[in-house]
C-alpha cells in the first residue's frame, strides 16, 4: 500500500528506539547516519554535529565557504557529485576531477548514478534524474564504463538507482533485474535510494515493499531516505526537501534490516530551500527510528 504523499506530520506515533532496534537487528555493525552538506546550513550542521556521522557532497566546496574546513575536519565526507554518465566512458577531465574530489574529501566510496541525461552531441540535457533504457546494450555500456572508472579510482564505486516516470517499450529488462546483472558483473556497491523505489512503485501501482525486494539488496552499501510530496507539475509523488514521514521511516528501517552490508543511511535533501529545522528534524527522526 502506498501512503498518500504529503508533508511530515508531527504526530506522537514515532516508534520507540528499542522497538526500532528489535525490528532492525544490526548485530555488531555500525550504521552511520548523515545528510547532504548544504553550505547555507553549514553553521547549523556544525552546531548539531553529534547528529551527523557523515555528509554527502553534491557540489565541490565554494571558495567563499568559510565553514568547509571545519566541516571536513569534523565529518566523514562522501563524494556524491555529478561526475559524468556511464553510458559513455569518462574522459580524462572527469576522471581527474573525480579523483581530486575523492581525495579532497577522503571519501570512503564514490557515488555515481544509473542515469543517462544528456545527448551524445551535447545539444540536449535534462540536468536531472533520467534513467537509461534498460536494455542489453546499455547494460554492457554501464558495465564496461563503470569497470573502467572503478579501476581509476582509489576507492570503491557505488551506484544509485534512478526512477523513471513513464514506461518505454524499448526497455526490455526490468530495472531490478538489470541492476542485479550490473552488480553481478562489476565490483561496485549499491546506493539504494528508497524514495526513488517508493515513487517508482507508486507509478507502477505496486507495493513498495515487494518492489524493494526485487532489487539486489545484498549489494547495498548506503541507503538514501527522504521526504516525498505530491509535485504539482507531475501530479504525482516525488522527492522533496522535507523530512521523511512515518511511512518512509518504516520503509527505511525495513530496508536497513534486510540489507546485510549497509554502512550508512543518508537523509537526501540538497537545496538552498532546505531549512535548518527540517534538516535537524529529519536526521533526528531517522536516528530515532533506526535506534542509532
Amino acid at each position: 500500500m502506498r501512503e498518500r504523499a504529503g508533508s511530515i506530520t508531527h504526530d506522537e506515533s514515532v516508534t520507540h528506539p528499542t522497538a526500532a532496534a528489535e525490528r532492525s537487528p544490526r548485530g555488531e555493525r555500525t550504521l552511520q547516519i548523515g545528510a547532504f552538506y548544504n553550505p547555507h546550513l553549514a553553521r547549523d550542521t556544525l552546531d548539531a554535529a553529534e547528529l551527523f556521522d557523515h555528509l554527502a557532497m553534491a557540489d565541490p566546496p565554494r571558495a567563499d565557504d568559510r565553514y568547509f574546513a571545519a566541516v571536513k575536519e569534523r565529518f566523514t565526507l562522501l563524494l556524491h557529485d555529478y561526475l559524468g554518465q556511464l553510458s559513455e566512458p569518462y574522459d580524462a577531465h572527469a576522471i581527474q576531477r573525480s579523483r581530486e574530489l575523492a581525495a579532497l574529501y577522503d571519501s570512503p566510496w564514490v557515488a555515481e548514478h544509473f542515469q543517462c541525461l544528456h545527448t551524445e552531441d551535447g545539444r540536449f540535457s535534462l540536468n536531472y534524474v533520467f534513467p537509461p533504457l534498460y536494455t542489453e546494450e546499455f547494460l554492457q555500456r554501464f558495465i564496461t564504463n563503470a569497470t573502467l572508472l572503478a579501476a581509476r579510482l582509489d576507492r570503491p564505486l557505488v551506484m544509485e538507482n534512478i526512477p523513471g516516470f513513464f514506461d518505454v517499450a524499448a526497455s526490455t529488462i526490468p530495472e531490478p533485474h538489470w541492476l542485479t546483472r550490473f552488480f553481478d558483473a562489476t565490483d561496485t556497491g549499491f546506493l539504494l535510494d528508497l524514495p526513488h523505489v517508493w515513487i517508482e512503485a507508486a507509478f507502477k501501482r505496486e507495493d513498495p515493499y515487494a518492489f524493494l525486494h526485487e532489487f539486489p539488496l545484498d549489494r547495498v552499501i548506503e541507503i538514501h531516505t527522504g521526504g516525498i510530496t505530491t509535485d504539482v507539475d507531475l501530479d504525482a509523488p516525488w522527492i522533496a526537501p522535507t523530512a521523511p514521514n512515518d511511512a518512509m521511516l518504516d520503509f527505511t528501517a525495513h530496508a536497513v534490516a534486510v540489507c546485510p552490508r549497509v554502512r550508512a543511511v543518508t537523509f537526501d535533501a540538497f537545496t538552498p530551500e532546505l531549512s535548518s529545522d527540517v534538516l535537524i528534524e529529519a536526521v533526528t527522526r531517522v536516528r530515532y527510528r533506526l535506534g542509532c
Partner: protein
Amino acid sequence: MAATSDRALQDALIRLLADAPFRSALSAGDEDALTQIPPEHAAVLRAVSPDRVRRFARFIARGYYHERVAHFYRYSHALARWTRCRPVDALRTPACDALLDRVILGSRDSAHDVAALVESHLAAASDAPPYAADLRRYESAQMIIEAGPRVWRSSASSPAITATTIAAPSADILVLDFAWDLPALLPTLLAARTDDSAQPSPPRATRTPTQLLFARSPRARVTVMRWSDSLAHLLSTMDGTRALRDVAAAAGLPDHDVLEIASTLAEVGAIHATEVSQ
C-alpha cells in the same frame, strides 16, 4: 542515415523531454521534424504516454531553470532580505507555466526568455537599491551566455598558447557596460546571505562606469572579467589570421604580455586558439 542504436533512441527520448517544439511536432505528426530519427524510434516515442511525457517535461524544465536561476541570480536572492522578492519565485507564476510549454532546455533563446521573466519579476520589487537593475542585467547575462550546446566529453587537450598561435574571438562572449562597480559589490552581497546582524538597508555600491566581459568555456563554465577599451582593441586584432607575435607588434605590447592575456582568454573560452606549425 540516422543511428538506430539504443543510445540513439535514448538521445531521442532526451530530446523529447528537452525540446517542446519537437514534442509538439511529434504529436502533430509533422514528419519533417522527425527526419533525423529512424522510423522505429519515432514509433517508440509516439507510444510513450503523452500525458506522462508532458508532465515530466514540465517538471524537468522547471527544475532545470530553478537550478540556473538560483545559481545565477544569487546576488538578487541575497537582496531579497530587503526587497522581499526572490528570483526563484518567478518560476511559480502563470507566465512561467506558459513559457515552460515552449522552451528548449539549453537553448539561448529559451534562456533569454526565462531571464526576461525573472528580470520582470525582480523589477517589481520594492525597496530595491539603485544598482538593482544593473545587477539583474549582470545575472541575466550569465544565464544567457551559459546556454548552448556544450562539450561533455573530450579527449582533446587545450592548445598551448605561443607566439605563433593564431587566435580568434569566440561567439560565446558578451561585453556589457554597467553604471555601477558590480565586481566590488558582489562579495559583500554574498556575505549578506549569512550575516545575521540586522542591516537596515542593502550594501552600498560605487557608481562608476564598468565594462565586463562574459565568456563561456566549451564545458559551459561562465567567467566574468573586467574589460576595457584596450583589451577590446587587442581582442579585435585577434582576427583568426595573425599570429600572437604579430598581434603584440600591432598593439605595441611585449610578446609575453599578449601571451599571458591570450592564455587567460583561451582558458575562459573568450578566444579560440589554433597552434600553427613552423
